[in-house]
């Protein structure tokens, strides 16, 4: 199996979440990864794009969400980049702490970390935030 790469650039609106999920599902189905892994990737991409659209780009349609998908013999890797002010995941309260259980947000990061094997956030030189997620075969 060779390395396959697909790149997407999508507008910052809520509908983009479903568009990105559909594109990733199609990419993942070609990669031959298991159904369980595909479910996890679907959960993770939806949460990552939701964060990019809402928290990163503040639904500003002048900004885009860039997605890079890579499939290799070892893993499927997904990067989601926004053009926001930057993001520190360590500043997000633990949504499983008793005092936060009834908060309505903050669970997306937990789902990304739960369903993917590696999740890292970083600020690239051009600014914004990139989250890179890896699902091993």
């Amino acid at each position, binding site marked *: 199996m060779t390395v396959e790469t697909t790149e997407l650039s999508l507008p910052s609106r*809520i*509908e983009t*979440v*479903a568009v990105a999920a559909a594109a990733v599902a199609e990419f993942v189905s070609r990669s031959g990864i298991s159904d369980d892994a595909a*479910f996890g990737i679907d*959960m993770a991409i*939806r*949460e990552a794009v*939701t964060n990019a659209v809402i928290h990163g780009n503040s639904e500003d349609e002048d900004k885009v969400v860039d997605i890079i998908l890579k499939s290799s013999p070892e893993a499927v890797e997904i990067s989601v980049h926004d053009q926001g002010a930057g993001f520190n995941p360590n500043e997000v309260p633990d*949504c*499983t702490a008793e005092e936060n*259980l*009834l*908060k*309505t*947000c903050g*669970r*997306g990061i*937990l*789902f990304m970390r*739960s369903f993917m094997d590696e999740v890292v956030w970083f600020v690239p030189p051009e600014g914004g935030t990139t989250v890179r997620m890896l699902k091993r075969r």
Partner: protein
Amino acid sequence: MAELNISERQAGDVTVLDMSGKITIGEGSVALRTAIRRLLEEGKKRILLNLAGVGYIDSSGIGELVSSFTAINKDNGQLKLLNLTQKLQDLLTITKLLTVFDVYENEAEALNSFK
């Protein structure tokens, strides 16, 4: 076709919402919020969500369930969940929300629990 279909029925003083589809950011979450707000406005405060047909929920949908739970409790009502799919049960386990929600696999048992 709507992302989330909700049909309402009455079982005594408990309102059962049979739901099917997806509770995700946007349409699905909004449909759930709208349905719960309407029930509270109508004074229907004992609500059982039958989630058997909900095959997919994201963090926004989970947040909407929590928001519904809080709004109903604040109005001295009760919200309970029925027929979680395995995936939804897994998500509520990960988020530790199984300790918050009253969850049932049997409708008669769920209805009796409101008494």
